[in-house]
């Protein structure tokens, strides 16, 4: 017993927190990279997550192959990201108050796109089956049977993050992104095609969110509203963890995932208040977040 709850309950909640944390990490990484490079708080990021789930669902409906959807969804939604960046965001770069305008246009998209999805797919959510290979429980943790699928989520996140790190730290694209995060003007002066880098980065963030959307889908019903919910949680993750750093969203994601799971154990609604309070406290005490780079988040 610990604080009135049996240890088995604790371990179960901790495990659920870890799974949720993985999803949050994948979505928040994209949010953080886009903010770091472009200075835009991307309210449209949640739609990419939701669209990913829908494209995944459609792929499974058409082909019956879950694994294929893991490739198709990021590809298609990455394409949507390219479209949004070129068609909408590019018009506001360099204008006065581009950061404000970025919040506003992406907010508009966040209102609009879920209704487009409702128009096409209908209002009710779509059930999304766990792939056959991963149904059934893998082992027992405390008193709970742990499904293979949840373990898969943890494993694939653990596999993806090193790849993302390599992309950001060992490739030319990554170098430009990191350089642009610390000084955009300088990068432009060096004669690098910033426009293409920004498009690529935005698409990358969208694809990551879409991937997270597909792998979450079997745990929840696919619904047009799912993007809005995770968006706010991911704001909190990036703020707590630190914008524009690689470790930040990981630390923030795990922390928020666990905090949600553990406070949810005590009282459902309470969990939501706690993460908002946590965000407020972090912003006040350490505005750049736990692992944020100095200077990036000062304004």
């Amino acid at each position: 017993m610990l604080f009135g709850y049996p240890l088995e309950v604790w371990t179960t909640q901790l495990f659920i927190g870890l799974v949720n944390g993985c999803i949050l990490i994948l979505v928040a990484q994209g949010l953080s990279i886009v903010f770091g490079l472009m200075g835009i708080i991307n309210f449209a990021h949640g739609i990419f997550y939701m669209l990913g789930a829908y494209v995944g669902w459609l792929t499974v409906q058409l082909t019956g192959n879950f694994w294929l959807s893991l490739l198709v969804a990021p590809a298609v939604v990455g394409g949507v990201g390219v479209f949004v960046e070129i068609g909408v965001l590019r018009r506001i770069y360099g204008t006065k108050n581009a950061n404000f305008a970025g919040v506003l246009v992406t907010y508009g998209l966040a209102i609009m796109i879920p209704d487009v999805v409702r128009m096409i797919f209908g209002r009710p959510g779509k059930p999304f089956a766990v792939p056959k290979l991963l149904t059934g429980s893998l082992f027992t943790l405390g008193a709970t049977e742990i499904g293979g699928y949840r373990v898969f989520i943890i494993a694939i996140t653990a596999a993806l993050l090193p790849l993302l790190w390599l992309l950001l730290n060992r490739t030319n694209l990554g170098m430009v992104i990191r350089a642009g995060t610390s000084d955009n003007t300088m990068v432009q002066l060096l004669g690098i095609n910033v426009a293409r880098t920004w498009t690529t980065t935005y698409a990358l963030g969208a694809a990551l969110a879409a991937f997270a959307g597909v792998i979450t889908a079997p745990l929840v019903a696919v619904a047009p509203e799912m993007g809005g919910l995770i968006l706010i949680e991911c704001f909190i993750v990036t703020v707590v963890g630190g914008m524009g750093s690689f470790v930040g969203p990981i630390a923030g994601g795990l922390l928020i995932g666990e905090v949600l799971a553990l406070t949810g154990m005590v009282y459902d609604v309470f969990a939501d208040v706690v993460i908002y309070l946590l965000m407020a406290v972090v912003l006040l005490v350490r505005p750049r977040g736990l692992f944020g780079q100095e200077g990036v988040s000062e304004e």
Partner: protein
Amino acid sequence: MTGRALPVIARLFERWGLWVAAALLLAAPLVADYTPFYLALLTEVLVFGLFALAYDILLGHTGVLSLGHSAFVGVSAYVTGLLLVNLRSIPVELAVLAGALGGLVTALLVGPLALRKRGVYFAMLTLALSQIFYFIALMWKPTGGTDGLGNLPRLFLSEVFGGFRLSKRPVTLYYAIAATVFLAMLVVRRIHRSPFGRVMRATKANERRAQACGYDTRRVKLVAFSLSGLFSGLAGALLTVTLEFVPIENTHWTMSGTVLIMTLFGGTGTLLGPFVGSAVFVWMRDFLSKKLEYWEVFVGASFVLIVLFLPEGIVGTLRRLVWMGGLERAPHAPQSLGVPQPSWSTPRSPARLGGVTAPSPLDAPGDLAKPSPSTAGGNNADVPLLESRGLTMRFGGLTAVDGVDFQVRRGELRAVIGPNGAGKTTFFNMLTGVLPPTAGRILFKGQDITALPPHAVSRLGMARSYQVTNIFADLTVLENLRIAVQSRVTTFSLWRNADALREVTERAERMLALLGLGAKRDFPAGALSHGEQRYLEIGIALATEPEFLLLDEPTAGMSPEETKQTADFIRTIAGRVTIVLVEHDMEVVMGVSDRITVLNYGKVLAEGSPAEIRENPDVRRVYLRD
């Protein structure tokens, strides 16, 4: 023809628009379809319009994006609702007033916390803090949770306005609310025209410059935030009275998004815009949603289009189009008259500048900056006006300024020179409170100012111009100077008319004349040429009537002719104000300064008269190596 008619219409509208609106409001129940449904809708448009108007105090007038306004409307709606439910005999007016105060109190709780951050971080913080109120409403029993707060007593409002009562409830309610909203609108307009309103606009135009003029912009934003909270609270209270119900959605953060959309639809920075935006939104919600099941597509898409293509909103765009139609008849078009005015230098002849009789704002009675070298200091003539002791600034491993001991006597004109990267601008930033030094002390008039913020330093009588032009680009040339003068008179007066501060305007006009920018009086400062902007830059600093003036490369980017004029100008003001000048043009430096300090790698390399510095072997080495 339209070119002639439109400005007339525009001017009539600017003058009488509000009263036309009032007449329309008064007549609406008689003219429109006389149905309770339409009246209820119109009432809602007014209430949401008031909310957007309150929101725009912050967004359009102070340049602050908040995503936490749901808290104000939410809290005030609950306060009003709970009072009406629990104290059945309470007058409605009192419950509404309490609700408005609830909004104010909420703003005073959220504001000081959120305003520790700026920009998008401020927005996120307001969002997070406002959601806490949402969850309180969700969990607390008396507010009814997700069901909302119902069971409000049927409000007949018979006592509203001294027992004034019309036969039918919707009509009574409509008039009561229309009158309240209209009054609130007049008050808000008055605030926008007050000296404080001007300070809000200056903060929006260029917050750092406003600080350097002596305005505590965080407090300015806090007051604006509180006012916004008060009027949002009033809207929330009226919403409760209108709906006779308090839905939980009032308090959810999407309400903040809704008010943002309404404000931008109508147009920020306008008085009628918020109401137009509110009407468009209510129309979309109530009519479009009947025709189109997926009406939010339309809302979202039109919002994106407005942000991209009509950033001024509906009213703002209309106003601009109308004014543009008559641009050729605009009052100030000196360039088109064929008089060549390539720069500011033409109207400002050297004779006028150098002449002692030139009308100077610095001569005005009551000015702070008068002491001449001979009379200065009085009983503490030995104390330097400004002194730094061991002043040091390190950025990580780089020591930009390294233990600088520096003294300036009253009345002196000191030049600080040094190769690029010598730490001159960093030194200025520390003196003016922009950068807190790593070590060392700064004394100004014998007072330790090391830890003071920029606005406090400015208030003590120190002003500066910037190396990179730093003016209020969106404000008129006159307003740039007026706001600087006003900083010495008043900041937080909300009720007077800013233009009625005659002395402030007169001093600004005199500075305008001194700068030779009289012909550009009503131009936006951003439209001036580079040289003119550099000049205005110095003018803003001078207009705060400093005892001590720091000029950071005033001639940067100027033509030789302009440079010469600037040197003359510096010489003119030098007798009245102590000056420290950072400058690269050696001719200017040698020509105007009494003494010169040479910085190199953050350290004082040499100090002395121009002649001494010219002969100094160390200085020669540093500059020849360059």
